[in-house]
């Protein structure tokens, strides 16, 4: 066990596999797949979450309670269990085998869609009621009020929270490891199984890559928050 010296060579030897997996054989993997899963499920979650939030606003009696409960259930069980649910159900529902990556993307998108929905709704609820009332008094319809008055303000307030949700999403892509999707974590563990004697080097490198991705985004969210706070001060 080479404790005294960090064995860089094993990382250099496997750098290509860590970054893109078996890309030459047409199998995307490694960091590239991690980013692909995070971006696609993040985008899906944003769209679905936005639609769900609008549904809650337009049907506060009929849909909002049901969607709220559904959100509690989806977010109340472990994310890994949700991945197994979709991993098991999607092929049955589609009538044919679905790639494992799709199940993971679907689970992450579903889980985060409800988080996005809650974030947007709380962003809207945090606006001073005078905004809605003034727009109403100016003769705006329900949709026009949301589109031109409420959503632009709420979205700029919740932008940092959405970035933080995305940071959590990047970390959650590592759960795909458990269902053998060759993203960064699984690829690292494959390299570890092959090399056997460099687990510290391999998992520290994987951790450092996740850390670089997540902490730079966290930093960006923080900057965004500061800028918004300053803008608010200058308005007041």
């Amino acid at each position, binding site marked *: 066990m080479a404790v005294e010296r960090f064995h860089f060579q094993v990382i250099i030897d496997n750098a290509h596999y860590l970054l893109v997996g078996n890309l030459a054989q047409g199998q995307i993997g490694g960091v590239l797949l991690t980013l692909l899963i995070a971006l696609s499920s993040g985008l899906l979650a944003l769209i679905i979450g936005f639609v769900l939030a609008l549904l809650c606003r337009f049907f506060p009696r009929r849909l909002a309670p049901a969607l709220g409960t559904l959100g509690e259930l989806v977010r109340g069980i472990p994310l*890994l269990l949700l991945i197994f649910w979709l991993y*098991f159900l999607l092929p049955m529902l589609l009538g044919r085998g679905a790639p494992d990556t799709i199940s993971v993307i679907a689970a992450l998108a579903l889980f985060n869609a409800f988080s996005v929905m809650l974030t947007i709704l709380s962003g809207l609820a945090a606006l001073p009621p005078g905004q809605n009332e003034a727009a109403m008094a100016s003769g705006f319809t329900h949709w026009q009020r949301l589109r031109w008055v409420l959503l632009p303000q709420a979205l700029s307030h919740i932008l940092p929270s959405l970035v933080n949700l995305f940071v959590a999403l990047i970390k959650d892509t590592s*759960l795909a490891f458990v269902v053998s999707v060759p993203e960064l974590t699984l690829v*690292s563990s494959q390299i570890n199984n092959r090399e056997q004697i460099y687990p510290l080097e391999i998992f520290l490198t994987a951790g450092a890559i996740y850390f670089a991705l997540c902490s730079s985004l*966290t930093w960006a969210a923080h900057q965004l928050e500061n800028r918004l706070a300053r803008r608010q001060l200058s308005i007041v």
Partner: protein
Amino acid sequence: MKHYHFDWSAVWSGQPLTWLLHGVGVTMLLTVLSCLLASLLAVILLALRFVPWRPAGWLAAGWIQLFRNTPLTVQMLFWYFGALPLLPEGLRNALANGPILLGLPLPSSEMLTAIWSLGLFSAAFLAEDLRAGVRAVPFGQWETVRSQGFSTWPALRHVILPQALAHAWPPMVNQYLNVLKNSPLAMSIAVAELMYQTNQIESFNFHGIEAYASASVLYLLIGLALSQLLQRLGPAPLHDKGVPHGR
């Protein structure tokens, strides 16, 4: 979907039921022990932030950033494959052969690694909630209590910390629930908790829907019980804006 034959007894009787109940027990043990470890470490991290020596605060901040910005999966694999083999051989052998401490059998080394990983990961989040709680206590409280002749520790002990904990408790309860929801990751280092056992049932008799539905209900129930318990154990909620109740 049309060929699926529902049979709840495939999960709730015989061997699968034994597995399921065993999984519930392991999940609860894992969650409770990780929560205890996380709380202890969170208090230490919080204390480091208030030590007058600046580098202690930097250490705590760096530690928290490190653990918050990397996935628990990687942390668990790191501790299990990377750090565990670095332990002295005698200790490792003792752990592998069903460790015994003071006459009591300890959990397996996989279970201990899972508790350790989950505890360290969650401590970073708890510490941040605690710190936010301390910062939410108005500075006037501190000035007032000091002007009444309290020295630092009694002031913290009797006035500042109780309020800070009351502020921090609701987000902390959420973090404790996250410990439960993160506990299935222990299956990746072969801890036979609820998720592991559910998959075992699925591959045993292919009744996946019943197995996953049962696991979902069990996780929701454990979560409900945990949050009820924590709300009862925790401090009473503060009245708005942290103004103490009554005059």
